[in-house]
C-alpha cells in the first residue's frame, strides 16, 4: 500500500516528533508514505487571513504535485495543513469559476479523483483498527487520555468531512484499540487559540488553561492531539505538567517501537515520568 504524503513545514521543525513517529508507525504498518515532490507551505492561517487567492493557490500547487504521483490518497498529518488543503479542494470541486482561475495561476488541471485525507482518518477508517490491533505489542494499560481534536480537523464539517463536528470519536476508538482509556469530556473540539500565541500569549494561556483543567477534571493523565499547533500551545502554556502526545506517538509506544525515546526528547513536558509510573517506559 502506497499513499501520497504531505508532511508540511512543521513536521520538520516545531512538531518533528509528529513527523518522526508518523513515518515510523507507517513503516510498521507496511504503508509506504510517498512524500509529495517538491512540496511547498500550505500558507497556514496567515495566508487566508490576508490573501484569499494565495490561500487557494499555495495548497493547489501541493495538490498538483500530489496528482503527479498518480496515487489516489493524499495523507496530511497536520490539522492546519489538512484544513487549508480541504478548503482548496472544496473550492476546486464546487466553484468552477474560481477553479479555472486557480488552475491557470498554478498551471495544472485539477482531478477530483485525488482524495485528501487527515492522517487520523487514514489510520482509523482506511487502514482500520483491526490492522492496528494486530500490531499492538504493549497495550497502554492504565493510561487515561483526553483526546483533543481542536478545530481544523472537524470544522467546517462540509469542508473537512471528518467525523462528528461536536463529538468526534475516531481518536477515542484508536486509543481503546491501543489499550489506553479515553476519558469523556466536553472540550475536545474547543479552540486552543492557534497563532494568537505569538501575539497574545495571555489569551492563549487562558484558553489552554480551560481546556487542560477540564481534561484533568475528567481524570485524564495526558492529552492526545493530531495537530502541531494545538500540541505546541497545550504543552507550552501550562503549569500542570500534563504530557501532550501526538496520537502517532502512542501508536508507536503500543507497537513497542525503539525510536520512541527520540520523540520524548522533543517534548517540552517529558512524558517519561508518567509512562514509567504506568510501567510503559
Amino acid at each position, binding site marked *: 500500500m502506497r499513499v501520497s504524503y504531505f508532511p508540511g513545514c512543521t513536521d520538520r*521543525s516545531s512538531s518533528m516528533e509528529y513527523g518522526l513517529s508518523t513515518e515510523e508507525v507507517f513503516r510498521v504498518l507496511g504503508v509506504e508514505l510517498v512524500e509529495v515532490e*517538491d512540496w511547498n507551505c500550505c500558507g497556514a492561517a496567515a495566508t487566508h487571513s490576508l490573501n484569499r487567492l494565495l490561500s487557494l493557490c499555495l495548497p493547489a500547487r501541493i495538490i498538483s504535485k500530489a496528482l503527479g504521483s498518480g496515487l489516489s490518497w493524499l495523507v496530511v498529518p497536520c490539522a492546519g495543513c489538512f484544513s487549508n488543503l480541504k478548503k482548496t479542494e472544496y473550492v476546486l470541486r464546487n466553484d468552477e469559476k474560481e477553479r479555472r482561475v486557480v488552475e491557470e495561476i498554478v498551471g495544472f488541471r485539477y482531478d477530483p479523483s485525488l482524495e485528501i485525507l487527515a492522517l487520523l482518518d487514514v489510520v482509523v477508517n482506511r487502514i482500520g483498527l483491526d490492522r492496528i490491533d494486530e500490531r499492538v505489542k504493549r497495550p497502554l494499560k492504565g493510561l487515561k487520555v483526553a483526546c483533543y481534536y481542536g478545530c481544523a480537523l472537524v470544522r467546517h464539517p462540509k469542508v473537512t468531512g471528518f467525523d462528528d463536528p461536536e463529538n468526534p470519536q475516531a481518536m477515542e476508538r484508536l486509543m481503546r484499540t491501543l489499550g489506553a482509556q479515553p476519558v469523556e469530556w466536553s472540550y475536545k473540539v474547543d479552540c486552543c487559540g492557534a497563532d494568537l500565541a505569538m501575539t497574545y500569549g495571555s489569551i492563549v494561556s487562558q484558553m489552554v488553561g480551560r481546556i487542560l483543567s477540564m481534561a484533568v477534571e475528567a481524570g485524564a493523565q495526558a492529552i492526545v492531539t493530531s495537530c502541531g499547533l494545538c500540541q505546541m500551545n497545550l504543552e507550552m502554556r501550562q503549569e500542570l505538567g500534563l504530557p501532550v502526545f501526538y496520537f502517532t506517538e502512542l501508536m508507536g509506544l503500543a507497537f513497542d517501537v525503539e525510536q520512541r525515546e527520540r520523540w520524548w526528547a522533543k517534548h517540552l513536558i517529558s512524558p517519561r515520568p508518567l509512562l514509567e509510573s504506568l510501567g510503559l517506559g
Partner: protein
Amino acid sequence: MKEMWEGGLRLGEGDFSFLEEVRRRSGEHLDLCYQCMKCTAGCPTAPYMDIKPHQLIRMIQMGRRGEVLGSGAIWFCVYCQTCGTRCPNEIHIGVLMDALREMAVGEGVEVKERRIHLLHEAFIQSVRRGGRVHEVTMLMDYVLRSRDLMKDSLGSGVKLFLKGKFPLFPSFVKEREEIRRIFERCTKKQ
C-alpha cells in the same frame, strides 16, 4: 429637531454598497443573519473583541464600513469555525473575517491589531522567500517589523530552538520560480 442624539444613524446616507461588497468578497449571505447571537455565544475569542461577531454582521448590514474594517475584532478571529459550523443560516463568519481583513488591508485602513497583522505578513514573506516557512527568520522578521520584544513570540521561539525543533537553516522548495510566479499573480490581482 434635525439631529438624532449622539451616535445616532441617518439611514439613507448609509453605505449599502458595503454589504454588497462584503457579500461578494466573502460569498457569505449576511442578509440572512437574524441576530440569534449563537456565533458570539460560542466564539472563544469574542471576550477579547471590541465588536462581537453578531454585532459585526449587523453593522455590515447597516453600512458601517469604517467601524467594521477598523475594528480589532476582525484580527482576533483565529478561524476556529465554531460559529460557522453552528450558524443556523450557514454564514461562515471565519470566511467573512478573512474577507474583512483583506479588505481592511487593501483599503489602507489603519489596522487596530497591528501585531497580529504583522505576524501574518512576516509568515507570508517567509513563504514567499523559500516556498516553505522558516520559523527562525520569520520570527526575526516579525520582531523587526513589530518591535515586539515580548516573550510571547521570542520566548516560544527560544524554547523550541533549545529543543532542537527550530532548524537554523531553511528548507527551500526546488522550483522557486513557481512559487515566485504564484505570489506575483496572487498579489497583483488584489
